[in-house]
């Protein structure tokens, strides 16, 4: 009758032949910078905190810098922001008590931002801290920033309606996790929370019940962004923030676009880290990481001065890394984001089983599942290499692809049946499949149980959750062991839900160590954290360290000054500029 089939099939081949350019892959190993550690220190010399920031070589003023990202930034309200995108963006529109001087190579220095220095430990017991506010910092309407506006910013972070941001300061000031009931912001709008005082316009004083030696780090978070109380628009502030930084929001279309233009009241001489190179920053939301990367690679029109915010998708890495012409437009850098196979210690109580798990894991294969060394670098420690004072060790040396025989030997003939709870996202399913494969090779019986992606974190944060294993990751809010080990492994913090101690690990001796180290001055802590890291792994093996995330970014030919923040592993915008 008809030859429809022939016509149709013909059409199909035209289509597919366009795709099938093939040449043999002989597998050249990609060259990746392995983990390096942050040399972070708190700048004691006030000159480190002085502005202006050194000029970026080759940078010029002008142009529009575009940032492509799939999902919108959840909050631009400094007191509410906590996402990486928010933490990296807010510095453009808000200043904080302290901030990080970062070269993107791991050379970190905590300097004063609104404060002249990164704080003063008044009694050398970490309980009373004073910050002297810098002179000459102004809001976008020209009025000066004083201790009062900084205090108000911290106070409004207690407002339960404005939840979402970090909670360190709040919890430390009132010494309880239930800070919003301990001090009611809405009933005390004109006062400051207990423990926080402004002896004068240029002094901010914190008094804590317990030693809080990490305070200089904690006040680098945007909780300390200043706000005049008459400019507080509540939940709407996120759509129209009131700027104290080099840029101010001039256009906000929720979920679609944010445009920031220069704030003429920002004074470069007061700022140790920020610049004001581009005329404007434009955040454009919507394109998938795939689309964004492809756009930036194509390098057409406005995309020439654009950055694809999300990392290059694993599937495109071979293409990007294999293109010598793109090398100048990519940034490859390890991040402080650490990933573990978390063992539920409340369920898997046999140390030898946990050790066997550590021996069995094939990290090399895992990295392949993730997309190679441009995505992940294997790790054998609890803390990521980017942590201050980090020391590399391998408590259970099993080679790059695991040692199933050693694991079998530790198991001594038993065949533990373990349930691996995994989010139902495509990637985590594949990771779980790979883990299941190499654990079963070592004599485990693994059941993968899917958990809805968006519910997984809530579920594993519940103590008494029913799974034996799950994937967990932790990105610290500052690169100190204090914001990693006690947070993740202090068994006394375990509650019914909302736990960060996903491993439900609890050991009195280790807990005592936490208390001891936490009272030491930050500079002395780092070495001790590294030692404790190794001790925990050797004595208890509460998790299987897997890998740290690697940031792999691509940007347009005219986008300059982008580096990966050594603190958060995301692109930093303070040096961003548009090349001519």
């Amino acid at each position: 009758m008809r030859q429809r089939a022939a016509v149709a099939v013909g059409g199909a081949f035209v289509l597919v032949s366009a795709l099938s350019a093939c040449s043999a892959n002989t597998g050249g190993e990609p060259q990746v910078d392995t983990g390096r550690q942050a040399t972070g220190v708190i700048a004691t010399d006030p000159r480190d905190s002085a502005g202006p920031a050194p000029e970026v070589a080759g940078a010029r003023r002008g142009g529009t810098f575009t940032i492509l990202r799939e999902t919108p930034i959840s909050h631009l309200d400094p007191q509410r922001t906590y996402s990486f995108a928010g933490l990296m963006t807010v510095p453009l529109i808000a200043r904080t008590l302290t901030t990080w001087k970062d070269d993107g190579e791991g050379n970190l220095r905590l300097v004063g931002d609104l404060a002249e220095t990164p704080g003063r430990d008044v009694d050398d017991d970490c309980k009373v801290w004073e910050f002297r506010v810098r002179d000459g910092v102004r809001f976008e309407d020209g009025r000066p920033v004083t201790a009062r506006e900084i205090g108000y910013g911290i106070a409004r972070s207690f407002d339960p309606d404005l939840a979402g941001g970090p909670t360190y300061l709040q919890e430390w000031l009132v010494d309880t996790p239930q800070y919003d009931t301990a001090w009611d912001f809405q009933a005390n709008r004109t006062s400051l929370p207990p423990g926080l005082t402004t002896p004068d316009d240029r002094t901010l004083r914190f008094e804590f019940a317990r030693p809080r030696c990490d305070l200089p780090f904690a006040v680098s978070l945007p909780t300390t962004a200043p706000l005049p109380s008459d400019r507080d628009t509540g939940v709407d502030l996120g759509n129209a923030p009131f700027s104290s930084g080099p840029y101010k929001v001039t256009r906000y279309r929720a979920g679609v676009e944010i445009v920031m233009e220069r704030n003429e009241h920002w004074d470069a001489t007061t700022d140790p880290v920020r610049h004001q190179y581009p005329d404007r920053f434009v955040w454009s939301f919507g394109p998938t990481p795939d689309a964004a990367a492809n756009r930036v690679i194509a390098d057409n029109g406005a995309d020439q001065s654009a950055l694809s915010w999300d990392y290059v998708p694993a599937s495109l890495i071979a293409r990007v890394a294999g293109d010598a012409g793109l090398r100048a437009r990519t940034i490859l850098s390890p991040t402080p984001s650490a990933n573990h196979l978390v063992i539920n210690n409340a369920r898997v109580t046999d140390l030898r089983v946990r050790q066997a798990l550590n021996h069995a894991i094939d990290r090399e294969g895992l990295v392949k599942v993730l997309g190679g060394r441009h995505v992940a670098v294997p790790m054998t420690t609890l803390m990521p290499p980017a942590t201050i004072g980090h020391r590399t060790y391998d408590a259970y040396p099993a080679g790059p692809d695991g040692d199933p025989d050693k694991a079998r030997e530790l198991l001594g003939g038993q065949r533990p049946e373990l349930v691996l709870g995994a989010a139902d996202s495509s990637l985590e399913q594949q990771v779980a499949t790979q883990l299941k494969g190499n654990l079963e090779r070592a004599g485990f019986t693994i059941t993968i149980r899917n958990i809805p992606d968006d519910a997984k974190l809530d579920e594993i944060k519940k103590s008494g959750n029913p799974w034996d294993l799950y994937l967990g990751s932790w990105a610290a809010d500052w690169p100190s062991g204090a914001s990693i080990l006690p947070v993740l492994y202090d068994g006394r913090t375990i509650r019914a839900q909302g736990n960060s101690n996903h491993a439900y690990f609890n050991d009195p001796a280790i807990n005592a160590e936490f208390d001891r180290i936490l009272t030491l001055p930050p500079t002395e802590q780092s070495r001790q954290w590294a030692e404790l890291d190794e001790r925990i792994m050797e004595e208890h093996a509460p998790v299987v360290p897997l890998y740290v995330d690697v940031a792999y970014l691509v940007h347009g030919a005219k986008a300059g000054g982008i580096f990966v923040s050594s603190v958060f592993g995301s692109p930093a915008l303070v040096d961003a500029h548009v090349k001519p």
Partner: protein
Amino acid sequence: MLRFLVKRTLSAVLTLFAVSVLTFLMFFALPRDPVSGMCPRNCNPERLERVRQELGLSDPLVVQYGGYMRGVVAGRELGAAQGGHCDAPCLGWSYVNNEAVTDTLVRVLPVTLSIVVPAAVLWLLLGMGLGLVSALRRGTWVDRVAIGFSLTGASLQLYFVGAVLLLIFVYTLGWLPVPGYTSLLDDPVRWAGGLVLAWLSLALLCSANYARLFRAQLLETLGEDFVRTARAKGLPRSAVYGRHALRAAISPVITVAGLDVGAALGGTVITETTFGIHGLGRTAVDAVRAGDLPTIMATVLAAAVFVVLANMLVDLLYAAVDPRVRLG
């Protein structure tokens, strides 16, 4: 006619009511705490409880549903964390998007309309054109190619075609701008440029059904007596096809088109995902993932309104085109 309209409207309202109730129930049947989607990242049990109180989640479902519906009709007062007073039609406050859901809808509806309406025009033109050509040249190679083309189109997947087209025309050749949405009012050229790939892929895939349907209808009507009579009377070919056959063959096409467009307006998730354009469909999916009940309700209801309206419109058009149909 009036009676028909009243009856049809009543049934439509009943449908929308049922959809809203089912969505509401479905959401609460989810095996997860609805609050966790609305509460920000670092929530402790006490704060969860507060959010629950604020959202009235401990009230009986009927009360919650009533409150929601009252808000839609008359507006209502929400807590300070939800932006305070909310004018009618109040669709609630989205914690996830940090905005009133009405604003979300106002933002995404033009996007979906911009994708679907021109695409529908294209796919109808293409489909009916192909159908007409193959019916007129029935049995010839033209017919074979047209039908082969449309069957191939129907067998392709949008995400597949979209990905290939993107790679070729946008990333490699750079002939087309990157897909995206610009308001038609702001810049018509950019509007069209950003959506043209979506239109083309939709048209390519959807026209197949119309080509086949229209061809079959034409062949059927061309075989009918009145067309033969008209030709015997010596009316020119074009007049016969134009005046008689086309009109008779068009009503089933209208039916299918109406239903398709109605459904597509409810969200073209695949298209939106493929081309990275955030319209109603993507918003709905994101809302379900985030457990954002107010946004789920709004997107589902908006989609249902489109489907129901399209259904009604089809019935009316059908009666207009085909006088044999009585509205009863």
